[in-house]
């Protein structure tokens, strides 16, 4: 479609995979679908299809060290998680101070309830979370996104693209609704997470699997 740039340029479907690979590589940063449609002269449906195929191809070919990942409405190219060992040998291994349980808890509340206020975070955790929220802001995992239309106009927080990148999550807005989950389900999930902790294969037991409780195989579609 020639919606944005007023020219006749349009790539054929066959030309798209190579073009998208080149663009994502050259960009380095995430590129929005809109922008891809614009420069390829192709409509969103086709672009999304090709990107998903590209992503699948990368994923299933164990001779590939790269992957294409979706972040909401953007796509980005990066190394596969499995390449960690070799990349640590190439670069110097990064030493990061371990994050506290409280940090992850706070992040979880923001991620699953966004946009949220401090008070909402505190009501779930039952403790003041100010300093942790400050740390999350500093880390670039959450950001302010306006104020709540309520007395005192409290600041609202949401997760960032950086969060999606570092946690291998495609979309924060599409995270499964957990509100109706029963205690027994939560317990099962936690147990399976505990079991998985040893195997390091997060893909098998992550929250992704809950997005569709009927389809446990869903987990295989996760990045890898």
């Amino acid at each position: 479609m020639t919606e944005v740039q007023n020219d006749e340029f349009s790539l054929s479907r066959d030309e798209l995979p190579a073009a998208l690979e080149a663009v994502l590589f050259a960009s380095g940063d995430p590129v929005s679908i809109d922008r891809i449609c614009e420069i390829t002269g192709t409509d969103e449906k086709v672009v999304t299809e090709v990107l998903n195929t590209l992503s699948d191809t990368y994923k299933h070919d164990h001779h590939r060290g790269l992957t294409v990942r979706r972040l909401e409405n953007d796509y980005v190219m990066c190394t596969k998680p499995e390449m960690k060992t070799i990349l640590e040998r190439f670069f110097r291994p990064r030493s990061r101070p371990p994050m506290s349980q409280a940090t992850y808890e706070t992040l979880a509340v923001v991620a699953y309830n966004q946009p949220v206020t401090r008070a909402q975070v505190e009501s779930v955790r039952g403790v003041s979370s100010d300093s942790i929220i400050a740390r999350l802001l500093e880390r670039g995992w959450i950001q302010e996104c306006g104020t709540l239309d309520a007395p005192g106009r409290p600041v609202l927080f949401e997760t960032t693209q950086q969060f999606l990148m570092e946690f291998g999550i495609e979309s924060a807005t599409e995270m499964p609704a957990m509100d109706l989950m029963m205690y027994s389900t939560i317990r099962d999930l936690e147990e399976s997470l505990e079991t998985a902790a040893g195997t390091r294969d997060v893909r098998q037991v992550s929250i992704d699997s809950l997005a569709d409780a009927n389809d446990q195989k869903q987990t295989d579609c996760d990045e890898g």
Partner: protein
Amino acid sequence: MGSHRIFDLKIDRFEGPMDLLFHLIEKNDIDIYDIPISEITDQYLDFLGEMSELDMEIASEFLVMAATLIHIKSKMLLPGPRGGRLTEECDDPREELVIRLLQYRRCKVLAKDLRERYSYYSDCVYKLPTLPRTIGINVLSIPQEFDPEGYNRAVMAVCARNEMRFADISSKITHLLKREKISIRDKMKAVWQKLIEKGRVFFHELFPSAETEPAEKVAGFLAVLELLRSNRISADQERPFDVILLSKKEERSRKESRMYLKEPHKVRKEQQI
């Protein structure tokens, strides 16, 4: 169940009262939808009691939860509607707690998932953007249509606004000056002068009720607070509504000032007037 010893637990092991409560529920293998509130409350309180015996500081959040538990417990003791269904108004008093516990549990599980995800995904490497010229692409910068008219209009707009602003502010201030002659700065000066002369003075001597306007008295009081805050004077009052004795602090008595800071109740007493 109620006599469980939990000496080996330390309060700082828990992220908060929810975490502690959850620990107790898990430990006793309690059905979360039917919490024996009386026993859980006892255990919770026992735990806090032991902590305070060990001289550990207990965060206020833990005490708030204790109060909540006791409240629920007392509600459970009240006779409920008999032989009928629970109406909207007569919900199980534990319901809110259960919802909160579920919410917190969810939060913990998700936190764990995020931790796992982070350790798996955070080392993926993203590439720096390719510079166009390194692949033979010249990027022409689009010249911004500069509108000299727009620029000049902006300069004029700022100037005009500032002229208005200051005309406005000065008229407001003139108005204020007429209406309000009391300046806290002057009062501070007056109090300070008096203290330099006499060393100590009663507040009511400076501002005798009979002949002082309320507004002036307030200004005087604010001046005193300001002087207190800057730690140049001290103020003493035996009990609320009693007379206040102001005294000048000696330059050298820094130790005393520090003590003063540690005893904010003296200041608070002042504020009760």
